[in-house]
């Protein structure tokens, strides 16, 4: 439609998306991934004093001390003694792949609980300019609807102070925790890597895209950072050879179709509801690691500084990034950078309002016939929308979303999807309790219940796992 949204709308969208990255990544690390590394049951055996000392050494958390950790431990004990283990029931507690001492486990369990509250609080940022979270509503074609809130000083202040509290948590608790946990699992810096990386990029800082994107757009093949190149929407295809759909083998999303077939009548070949997205015919990992690698390869100041800091702290080099641990670290690295950047966007917004620039919406006419593409990077990775409009109505709409890129199946050439590739060679101590598989799958932050098939080459036992 040839529409340029006002600067303020762009900034407010960036602020909402920035808050989304902060919250999503925090929840991922503490609530969807940490228990793959942290044995909560072992935390019951920890000495609160030793825990307090450890916590003081590794982090600047605004909470801590012997009484605090004693309190958390008591709370966990009461919970376990109640005999109703609820969400902690029947997990892999005591598994030999857990390597952290009880003190570190207690510290992490305490921060798990703190992070639960912090993430909930932080989403007041979304309510302020989005109306509510989840499913904020104010982002519309042409701009954003929250002009009244943007012009309310108390709303702006509320946003700023909530942001500050969240960013504090990220730098003083989340980052130190990632480093602390990683220090016990350095062997995971050589497990779970993939080869190709794709990012559409996110956070336009002017009306020019992709040039002004704070997290840049790009593609990297075969781990060759020096060869990073621009990503173009025309080079994306989706393949259905091994998926439960009918139609031609692959299509560009503009022409995409989604016609499911009954899995019972589809034969043995298809094994997934995901299509297999490809860039120039190649599978690509998307998400925090892909974004950080693209940014790093392009010499991005903040991402480079943060990445080098983390690598230095762990005493590893850039090759360690191509791994399960690298993926989990990259998520934190970009959270720190994006979170910090939000302050400058906020100040730019205030500057505009001061100058009397209060525009938030550009009016438009719905065209009779049009095509359009929207390319973004959301917390889980590259997100593309392709739309055809006929008679002022949507004629076709296709999305290629992050979890499809990462979890998609093989294509007609037999090339594996990124998660499939990452799982090859994963050491598994006990095939009946495949904790190690969870680590790698969860490190991608999958957004669906997914089916994983694992074959143990030694015993030739085939196990089927549901990873959630």
């Amino acid at each position, binding site marked *: 439609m040839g529409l340029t949204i*006002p600067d303020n709308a762009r900034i407010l969208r960036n602020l909402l998306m920035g808050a989304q990255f902060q919250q999503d990544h925090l*929840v991922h690390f503490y609530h*969807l991934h940490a*228990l793959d590394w942290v044995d*909560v049951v072992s935390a019951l055996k920890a000495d609160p004093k030793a825990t307090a000392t450890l916590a003081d050494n590794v982090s600047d958390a605004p909470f801590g001390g012997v009484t605090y950790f004693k*309190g958390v431990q*008591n*709370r966990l004990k009461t919970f376990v003694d*109640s005999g*109703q283990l*609820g*969400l*902690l*029931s*029947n*997990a*892999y507690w005591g598994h030999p792949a857990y390597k952290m001492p009880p003190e570190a486990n207690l510290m992490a369990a305490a921060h798990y*609980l703190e992070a*639960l*509250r912090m*993430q*909930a*609080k932080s*989403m*007041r940022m*979304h*309510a*302020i*300019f989005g*109306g*509510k*979270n*989840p*499913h904020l*509503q*104010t982002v*519309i074609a*042409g*701009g954003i*609807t*929250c*002009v*009244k*809130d943007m*012009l309310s000083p108390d709303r702006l202040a*509320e946003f700023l102070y909530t942001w500050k509290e969240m960013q504090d948590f990220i730098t003083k608790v989340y980052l130190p925790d990632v480093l602390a946990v990683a220090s016990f699992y350095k062997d995971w810096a050589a497990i779970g890597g993939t080869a190709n990386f794709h990012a559409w990029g996110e956070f336009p800082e002017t009306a020019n895209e992709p040039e002004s994107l704070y997290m840049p757009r790009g593609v990297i093949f075969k781990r060759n950072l020096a060869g990073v190149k621009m990503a173009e929407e025309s080079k994306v295809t989706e393949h259905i050879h091994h998926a439960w759909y009918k139609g031609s083998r692959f299509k560009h999303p503009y022409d995409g179709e989604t016609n499911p077939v*009954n899995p*019972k009548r589809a034969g043995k070949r298809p094994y997934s509801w995901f299509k297999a997205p490809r860039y120039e015919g190649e599978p690509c990992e998307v998400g925090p690691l892909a974004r950080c690698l693209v940014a790093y390869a392009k010499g991005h100041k903040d991402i480079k500084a943060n990445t080098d800091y983390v690598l230095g702290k762990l005493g590893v080099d850039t090759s360690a990034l191509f791994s399960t641990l690298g993926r989990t670290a990259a998520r934190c690295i970009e959270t720190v950078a994006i979170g910090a950047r939000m302050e400058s966007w906020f100040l730019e917004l205030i500057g505009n309002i001061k100058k009397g620039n209060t*525009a*938030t*919406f550009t*009016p438009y006419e719905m065209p009779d016939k049009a095509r359009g593409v929207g390319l973004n990077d959301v917390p889980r990775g590259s997100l593309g929308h392709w739309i055809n409009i006929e008679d002022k109505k949507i004629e076709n709409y296709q999305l290629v979303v992050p979890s499809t890129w990462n979890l998609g199946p093989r294509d007609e050439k037999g090339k594996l999807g990124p998660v499939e590739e990452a799982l090859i060679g994963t050491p598994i101590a006990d095939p009946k*309790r*495949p904790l190690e598989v*969870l680590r790698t799958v969860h490190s991608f932050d999958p*957004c669906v219940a997914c089916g994983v098939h694992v074959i143990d080459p030694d015993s030739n036992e085939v196990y089927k*796992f*549901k*990873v*959630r």
Partner: protein
Amino acid sequence: MENGLFDRLEQKGISRRDFMKFCGYITATLGLSAAYVPRVAEVFAAGKQRPAVIWLHMAECTGCSEALLRSMYPWIDELVLEILAIEYHETIMAAAGRQAEEQLEYALNKYKGKFICVVEGAIPTKDRGIYGRVGKHTMLELGKKVTKEALATITIGNCSSFGGVQAAKPNPTNAKSIDDALGIKSVKIAGCPPNPVNFVGTVVNYLLLGKLPATDSYGRPLFAYSKTVHDQCPRRSHYEAGEFVTQFGSEEAAKGWCLYEMGCKGPETYNNCPIVKFNDGTSWPVEAGHPCIGCSEPNFWDQMAPFYEQK
């Protein structure tokens, strides 16, 4: 109220003031008089056995679970550690795979006839439910098996309550609401996603009065869904005065005039958004300048569209 309660709460790091504030909030949401505040407080003072919950995920986006994670009165960690025993919840439980399935069987046995089943998401029914599976079961089988043993079923969100986006045209998997797919009657916490306050309110009602709250003919609790958004909207006086926003970003929008002309479905939508608001009472869509899309009403995707025009 006994003092021991506050000692126990303090051990959990909850101050007396915070706690009473929260109880007042929930009591007000439920529409009970202030005299109930101490009784609500007792409910949350964690008796010996916490009520067991089995939470099922059908065809959905997990937005309702995410909404629950934003619960601040009580805090989500209190809900999962001290108030409820959430025995099965695919997103946040620590167990995975076979261990998760075992846990479901275990909980079904242990709490047979005594647990609350919460369902998020619609059920695909085409080709005997083959388009939605969890582990070995279709969602259809799973839903039947679990709700049959439940004391009561609460459907959270528009998908489980009314079919939601899954059941919107063209509905390729013939997805249906839980009631329609399974032939049961559930209490419906409608919304996309709903305010977690209304879920908590329903649970409190159950713990406090020993029964689920009174509902409207669709099964939505009256304490939350008995009035239209329009009737509770702070912009109502602008509606009466004929002061309407006709373009986003306009002077009228900055003044907070009525969004009826922008397509607001507040007049047809039953919910308490304007009163309780979302995320610690921070805001709700109309306050942030966006017309209500009617997300707590049956079939709202088809019924309420187009969202930005009055029909």
